[in-house]
Structure formats: structure tokens, C-alpha cells
């Protein structure tokens, strides 16, 4: 697949930029940082497209992993850090200051209503917001092993819903 082409770029951007930006936005909690992550994601995709192996997944999941890892790196190793609003974990919307996030969160959790509440919550923190298992364990007062096992079970449950 030759992607160094404006038409290819247009196709990828129109179909995936919103999903990638949404993930980056939820993890970083800041629009400007999410924009940087989105930009860096596309640059990496174009740079390393030759390394993509379709036997390991779809092109989108490959892009998604690049985006997620980039966003997590930003908040873990970058200058920007975020404050976890754990007090609001029981509500669906973590960020009360970003209306854009509030909007997409409502749709998200409605779709995931079929998941057990604990599983939904742990996936929300772990995958959607990109918190480390250690961070979750500390803030929720759970053993690290319990967090890990709950993440695994939650993903398996999710696969039953979205195989």
C-alpha cells in the first residue's frame, strides 16, 4: 500500500482521524496535546507503513495502537501531566471542563452498557483513558494483581460483545 500520496492521506484522514483524535483526546484530556498526538500518529503511519503486517491486525488497529501509545507517552513522559479525577469515576464523564469529551463519553457508555459495571469501569480507565495499572490500583485501593486480572476479564467480556 503506497500511502505517500495525497489521495491516500485524504482517505485515511477522513475515515480515521476522528476516532484517533477521540482516543488521544480522552487519554490526554487536552485538545492541543491530542492534536499533536494525532499529527505525530499520521507522520509515523506514513514513515513506518512498510512495517505494517496485515497478519497481525487491521490497518486501523495498527494506527490506533500508534495513537494510543503516543498519547500515553505524552502524559507519562511529556511535560504535560494530567490530574486524575477519580472522585468522578462513578459518573460517565471524567472531564467536566471539556464539553467535547462530555459529548462523546455519553455515546460511549451507552454502547457499553452490556458490560458489567466493574469491567466497563476498568476498561474505561485502562484503555480509554490510558491509566497504568499501578495508577488504577493506587487510586482505587486495589491490589495490582486484581487490577490486572480485572482488565483481562473485561477485555474477554468485551470480545464477546464486539468479537
Amino acid at each position, binding site marked *: 500500500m503506497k500511502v505517500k500520496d495525497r489521495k491516500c492521506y485524504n482517505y485515511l484522514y477522513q475515515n480515521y*482521524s476522528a476516532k484517533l483524535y477521540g*482516543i488521544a483526546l480522552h487519554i490526554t484530556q487536552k485538545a492541543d496535546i491530542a492534536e499533536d498526538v494525532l499529527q505525530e500518529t499520521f*507522520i509515523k503511519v506514513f514513515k513506518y507503513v512498510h512495517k505494517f503486517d496485515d497478519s497481525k491486525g487491521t490497518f486501523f488497529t495498527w494506527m*490506533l495502537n500508534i495513537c494510543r501509545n503516543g498519547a500515553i507517552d505524552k502524559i507519562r513522559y511529556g511535560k504535560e501531566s494530567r490530574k486524575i479525577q477519580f472522585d468522578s469515576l462513578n459518573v460517565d464523564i471524567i472531564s467536566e471542563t471539556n464539553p467535547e469529551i462530555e*459529548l462523546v463519553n455519553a455515546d460511549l457508555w451507552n454502547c457499553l452498557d452490556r458490560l458489567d459495571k466493574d469491567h466497563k469501569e476498568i476498561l474505561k480507565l485502562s*484503555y480509554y483513558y490510558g491509566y497504568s495499572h499501578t495508577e488504577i490500583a493506587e487510586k482505587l485501593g486495589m491490589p495490582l494483581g486484581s487490577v490486572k486480572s480485572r482488565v483481562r476479564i473485561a477485555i474477554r467480556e468485551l470480545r464477546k*460483545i464486539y468479537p
Partner: protein
Amino acid sequence: MNDIKKYIESGILEDYLTGTLTDAERQEVENTADKHPEIAQELASMSLSLSVFADIGAAEPAPYMESRIWDEIQATSLTESVQNATKPSKLPYIMIVAMALIAFITIYYLIIANQDLDQANEKIVNIEQANTELRLDNDKLKYNFDSLYTISNIYNIENTKIYLMKANRRNAPNSIVVLVWDNSNNKIYLDIKQFPNSSTGKKYFLWGITQIGRQIELGSFTHSGGSQTIELDGIRDAVRYILTQERESGVNYPTMSKVYTTADVY
């Protein structure tokens, strides 16, 4: 197969997908997935399920992002092209290193060779010097041998006694005088090889000293360089011969301060 199943159920794939692994651990998972298609398939399936979060959490980026990202991609590609174009090839570098290495080795061996050459030259000079000394010694030996050979041919060796006269260190330190006494005819032959020239108004006198101390003049001669053989009358009871330089008219007794050579008879 059991190992693969254990690996999948270990939870490391979930850790990988949720981004909790270090870069090294992440790379290890990817390498394992490369080797085992079952693990790669499991990873792909889980990724697909989790991508639902992206579907339902989509958020439109700002309108300017599309052109901004494209411009950045173009700029990055251009920068990489320039960097690749301006990046010096390794080949000239390798050649420079190789040439430098060759030059170094060459210089090193030239220095070593030069040192060897200097040593060889020094040895040659020493050998030439030794050779010259040997040649001089050889010439001297040959000269002496020729003289002795001549003497031995002239005289009957069986009836003669040959003495190399001792040089007086003060008067004639480098003199070489051979005294031959032929008892068949009681003649003395002085074979003079190297001896000081006679002073003006002076002559050399050979004296025979007997056992009781008598000093008998045996004859005189002058010397003006080169070699010569002097024939003189001998005496049978001499125990010592001395060669002195005296006034031309002669003296009754030898002047002991003017002794040039001596020979003890045995």
C-alpha cells in the same frame, strides 16, 4: 502448543494492548507474535474488539488539522530526503579510514626499515673497519712471514738461532729487528724491518755481551729507512746482544742510554 496457550492466557497481550508494558517488553511481545501466528491472531482479535472505544468515542479534530498534518508530513519527508541526500556515504569514510590505516602501516614499516637500514649501515661500517684492521694485520703478518721465509731460505735453519730483538720503549718503541746467528760460520745477520733512521754523524753498533760481562763490538751500520739485512761477525760465548747508536768514529763501550734493541741468547 501448551506454551502458546499459557502465553496467551498470561495476560501479557492485554497488558500490551492497554499500553502498560515498557518498550523492551512491548518489543518482546511483537517478536513473539512474529514467531507464532496464533499469538498474532489473538492480538489482532483483541485489538479489533478494543477499537470499539475508538468508534464510539470519536471526536472531530479542528478543521485546520487536515492541512496542518499533511504539510507536516510533506515537510518531514522533505527533511528526511535532504538529510539522506546530505548524509555522507559510509563508503568514502571507510576508504579514508582504510587509506589512513595503509598510510600508517606504510610509515611504520618505513621507519622500521629505516632503523634496520641505519643498523645495517652501522654494521657495514664496523665490518669495513674490522676488515681494514684485519687487512693491515694480514699485510703485516704476510710481510713478516715473507721476511722469515726469505731468511729461512737463505740460511740453514738447522744451524741457526733466530731472535726477535726487544725494542727499547724510550728509544725505539716500534722497532722490528730480527737477529739470526748461524753457528756453522759464526755469522750474525740483522734483518731490520722497522727501525729509526741513523742520526747525522751517528751509527748503529751491535755489541755482544759475554757471560763474564765483556762488551765486544761486532760491527756497525747506518740505517736510512726501509728494510735491510746486515751481516756481522758473531761470537760463540755471547749471552746477550745489544744495539746502540753511537758516534760514527766508534766508542770503546756501549752507551747504555742509547740502547735501541736487545736480544738474550739462550
